[in-house]
């Protein structure tokens, strides 16, 4: 007779949205290790906050590669993090009205931050400010 596998950590959900969420955590987590540690090394170790300013960001986002890199990281980190917050709400907020309120806040935050983050990364046009600075 085989013994059941002892449960360490969260059990794999049997299907549906929770199973997609389970896989999303793991796949996005692996990608984020690469993305976030690269980001930490470039933005906190090689360049520190003493050196980073608007011009630094403008030069960085001159390259479509870094815009894509930052947008992918924004998308994955926000959904990974808010999905984690969703599980925390599941665990701690039991009364139904409060749960509905918490989920509403969560998904509202998710949509607003995905939109403003995407606007910031994708629509940024440094030339507009450089021309204005030269004209004055």
């Amino acid at each position, binding site marked *: 007779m085989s013994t059941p596998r002892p449960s360490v950590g969260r059990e794999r959900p049997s299907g549906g949205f929770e199973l997609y969420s389970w896989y999303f955590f*793991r796949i996005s987590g692996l990608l984020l290790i690469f993305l976030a540690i690269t980001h930490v090394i470039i933005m906190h170790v090689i360049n520190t906050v003493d050196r980073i300013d608007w011009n630094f960001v403008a030069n960085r986002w001159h390259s479509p590669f870094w815009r894509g890199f930052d947008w992918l990281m*924004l998308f994955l980190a926000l959904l990974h993090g808010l999905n984690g917050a969703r599980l925390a709400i599941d665990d701690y907020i039991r009364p139904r009205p409060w749960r509905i309120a918490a989920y509403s806040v969560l998904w509202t935050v998710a949509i607003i931050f995905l939109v403003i983050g995407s606007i910031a990364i994708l629509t940024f046009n440094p030339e507009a400010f450089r021309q204005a600075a030269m004209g004055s």
Partner: protein
Amino acid sequence: MREPWDKGASVVTTEVVEPKDVTQPPATRHTLSAYRGYRPPPGMLAWAFHRISGLGVLLFLLLHIVDIFTVGYGPDAFNSLLVIYRHPVFRVAELLLIAGLYYHAANGVRIILIDFWDRAYHYQRELFYAVLAVTVIAFVPTAILMLRSFF
């Protein structure tokens, strides 16, 4: 059939239970000192640190999205916000953020190992200590380099 995590050893133990002194009520004290000497199992600590570090990094991410949104409003708007990040209090918070991020990344790998590699279950305790070691080994040089302008 024996599963990989089944060591096959019998876990059934017969213990002789001493009769308890029923004249004395059990001492239950709901004070902090009642928890003195309690050592949470590593798996529980790993989980608690994972959740705390995850929510902490998420909080910073939301702040970071707000600050980067001001980049679109020009150099003055964005640069005026940088006093927050250059403040000594935030420089310390930044270290905490990196420590939390490294822990979350290392423990995330531990979780994936336990999920997809059956034998990892046997080593989950050792894996937790490895996660702590990796976090410290990665964090110390990062912290020294981040604070180099103060030395």
